[in-house]
């Protein structure tokens, strides 16, 4: 970030509208789920207090639900309920269930046996005993359960933003993706304050004396409903199409901000995690998503990339970058690596990614099949004239490329190969290269520009305009600063892209982002 550092306070004031909406959404989401959880959990707790045989099973199931990681539970909900508030509420409800059921059960079974006997002996019916004796006496314990459930729900509700249900999670996860501390804190602090506030209020209710507790039990459901109504279901308003963007994409100039300023695109947008976005588009929950142009899921879910006709997404062309002393040490290397140059376009790379990410074929097999089909594959010469060390980042595409280079080097030269794949992010990979831990790895032009070189905004605007300019700028600067050489680009561009379902795009006649804008503007 080259912009001047702003304080947290500035950020919160600037985003106060959004902050308020998110906070209200968060409260609403929490209390709808809580209300439903009480509606389900209380009768279940009463049931198992009556039929003790069921208690093991019910508490067991609720306990297992509690152990499912929150993200996974949200993930399970998508095929069942799609995205948005519905699955989020169900998932939150399931999390809140255990403390409510367990405390209802404990509270009721803990009522003094002689009091229950007296109630029975005086001729009270089962229902009268429940409402006049058991529930009132169990109320402090039940309230403690609801209190626990509330705190859990406030916390887990931050994850709801992953499946486009809103809440303070939008700031938190957007901030994490954009490495924007103020944004993270603007979401995390209110969320923590909400948890503390509700916990405190409920502790006050819990410690009321018997007489006041009677009144509180009447007021509480009303209050719960009122707080629930804060949540205005986001899908209530809408445009013709719905877009789902990752939190990172939302906050970037070369993302949603650019779409708005350069294209003037106005589309109903919800924030969603990368993990579920493609699937949601496939299932028609979303119409437009932000993705990466060579992602294998593009093929798996039958999506098509919209042409970025105004070039707001910077080019991310892949090319191997090599230390110059390694080129001297292995004279054959440059020629060999360039064998791949221009051989893989976006479609081919998507296909290859699809085979590893989606069909779960090994990157080695995919790499070999491709080289064979291009007549590039040669058997291992088993050479021993030094060992070339290949690095790669930790995702499928890079594994495939590393495997191809390894096969090419073994087949065309007498060098040996050692691969160091799965080197975390860009920073780790690049450090490994400059510190002579690896000799080369595949890098992307956009990454080189924005992550490693980080020139001023003016320079970025200037060189981002075309893929050649970016490549040349990277090439010159890397050579000057790090004595690292960019070899020829492989051919594909793994950039940000807007995508739609193939069939819908064809039906609407949308091929470019401008087409999309025109379609949306048409009434």
């Amino acid at each position, binding site marked *: 970030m080259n912009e001047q550092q702003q304080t947290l306070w500035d950020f919160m004031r600037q985003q106060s509208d959004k902050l308020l909406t998110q906070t209200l959404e968060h409260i609403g989401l929490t209390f709808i789920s809580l209300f439903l959880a009480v509606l389900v959990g209380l009768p279940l707790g009463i049931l198992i207090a009556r039929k003790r045989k069921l208690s093991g099973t019910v508490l067991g199931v609720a306990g297992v639900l509690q152990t499912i990681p929150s993200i996974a539970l949200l993930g399970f909900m998508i095929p069942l309920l799609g995205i948005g508030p519905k699955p989020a509420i169900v998932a939150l409800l399931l999390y809140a269930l255990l403390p409510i059921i367990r405390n209802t059960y404990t509270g009721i079974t803990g009522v003094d046996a002689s*009091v229950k006997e007296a*109630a029975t*002996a*005086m001729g009270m019916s089962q229902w009268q005993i429940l409402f006049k004796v058991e529930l009132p*006496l169990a109320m402090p314990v039940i309230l403690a359960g609801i209190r626990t459930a509330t705190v859990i729900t406030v916390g887990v509700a931050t994850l709801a933003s992953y499946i486009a249900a809103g809440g303070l999670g939008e700031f938190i996860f957007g901030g994490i993706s954009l490495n924007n501390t103020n944004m993270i804190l603007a979401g995390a602090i209110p969320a923590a304050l909400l948890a503390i506030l509700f916990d405190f209020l409920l502790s006050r209710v819990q410690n009321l004396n018997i007489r006041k507790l009677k009144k509180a039990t009447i007021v509480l459901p009303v209050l719960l409903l009122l707080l629930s109504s804060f949540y205005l279901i986001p899908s209530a308003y809408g445009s013709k199409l719905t877009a789902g963007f990752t939190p990172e994409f939302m906050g970037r100039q070369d993302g949603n901000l650019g779409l708005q300023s350069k294209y003037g695109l106005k589309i109903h947008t919800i924030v969603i995690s990368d993990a579920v976005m493609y699937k949601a588009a496939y299932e028609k929950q979303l119409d437009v998503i932000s993705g990466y142009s060579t992602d294998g899921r593009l093929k798996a879910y039958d999506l098509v990339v919209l042409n970025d006709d105004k070039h707001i997404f910077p080019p991310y062309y892949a090319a191997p970058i090599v230390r110059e002393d390694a080129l001297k040490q292995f004279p054959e290397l440059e020629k060999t690596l360039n064998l791949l140059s221009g051989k893989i376009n976006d479609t081919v790379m998507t296909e290859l990614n699809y085979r590893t990410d989606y069909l779960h074929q090994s990157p080695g097999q995919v790499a070999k099949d491709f080289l064979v089909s291009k007549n590039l594959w040669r058997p291992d010469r088993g050479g021993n004239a030094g060992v070339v060390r290949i690095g790669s980042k930790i995702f499928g595409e890079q594994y495939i490329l590393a495997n191809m280079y390894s096969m090419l080097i073994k087949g065309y030269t007498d060098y040996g190969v050692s691969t160091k794949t799965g080197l975390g992010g860009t920073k780790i990979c690049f450090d490994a290269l400059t510190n002579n831990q690896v000799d080369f790895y595949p890098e992307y032009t956009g990454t080189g520009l924005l992550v490693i070189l980080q020139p001023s905004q003016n320079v970025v605007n200037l060189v981002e305009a075309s893929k050649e300019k970016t490549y040349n700028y990277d090439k010159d600067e890397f050579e000057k600063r790090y004595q690292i050489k960019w070899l020829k680009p492989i051919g594909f561009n793994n950039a940000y892209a807007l995508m739609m379902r193939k069939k819908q795009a064809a039906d609407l006649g949308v091929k470019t982002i401008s087409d999309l804008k025109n379609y949306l503007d048409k009434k």
Partner: protein
Amino acid sequence: MIKVEHLGKHFGRVKAVDDISFDVAEHETMVLLGTSGCGKTTTLKMLNRLIEPTHGKIYINNKNILEEKPEILRRSIGYVLQNNGLFPHYTVGENIAIVPQLLKWEPKKIQHRVSELLEKLHLSKDLLGAYPNELSGGQQQRVGLARALVSDPPVLLMDEPFGALDNVTKAKIRAEFKALDELKKKTIIMVTHDVQEAFELGDRICLMDVGKIVQQGTPSDLLFKPKNKFVREFLEEQRLQLEFKTITLKDINQNVAGFQPEHSVWHVLEKLKSDENKSQGFEHLMSAFYQYKQQQAHE
């Protein structure tokens, strides 16, 4: 009034109550006496169907109660528990009014009846709004009794009603209990393990052991005509005191000025003890008492 026929309750293979039968006449107090685990409490709880019998029949006022709806049945039977079983979240007033509320009495009538009972049971009106945990043990037990009596049920079941009290309080409340006119019109079945209590309060006693009735009869039947060794040994430790309490002036054909024929020798002696002038009457009474005992033993 109450008729129990071949009543039994089995828990698995254990016969907690094993085929017992007894009758209780109207306005009579029947005490179920025995050690813990003899089946006396189980027997009591079958009478208001807190426990369902395995076999046998129970009639109250010639009606088979096993054919009645349990809730309706219970509203006409007062029940006093050892640990009072007061609702901790109800005030004293609300606790006493539970049954009238169930019976849907007019609020005025409830209020009137509650204050009437408070007075009879020597409870201050200030306690109406108090919660049970603010009361002493004796007060709690009185409230428990008031709650059982409030709707004036013809039958009263009491499960160790004084069991949780200390000896001084117990004696005091027992005395009040005997004097309470409300109780004179009731048919009472009471469970206790306290022999003194059984003899003091019971018109008749069922002595129970391992689920069976060993002997039933008046206190003097048990004392002077014990059916077997078990009955004799059960009473042995406190025999003399029990005899003093059981034998009345009428039994020994004595007239003492200022006392009724139904008064026990114990009662008369207690009063005379403190009166120097009557010491002659004291000796006379004692000799008549021993004469009567001798007679009983030879019968």
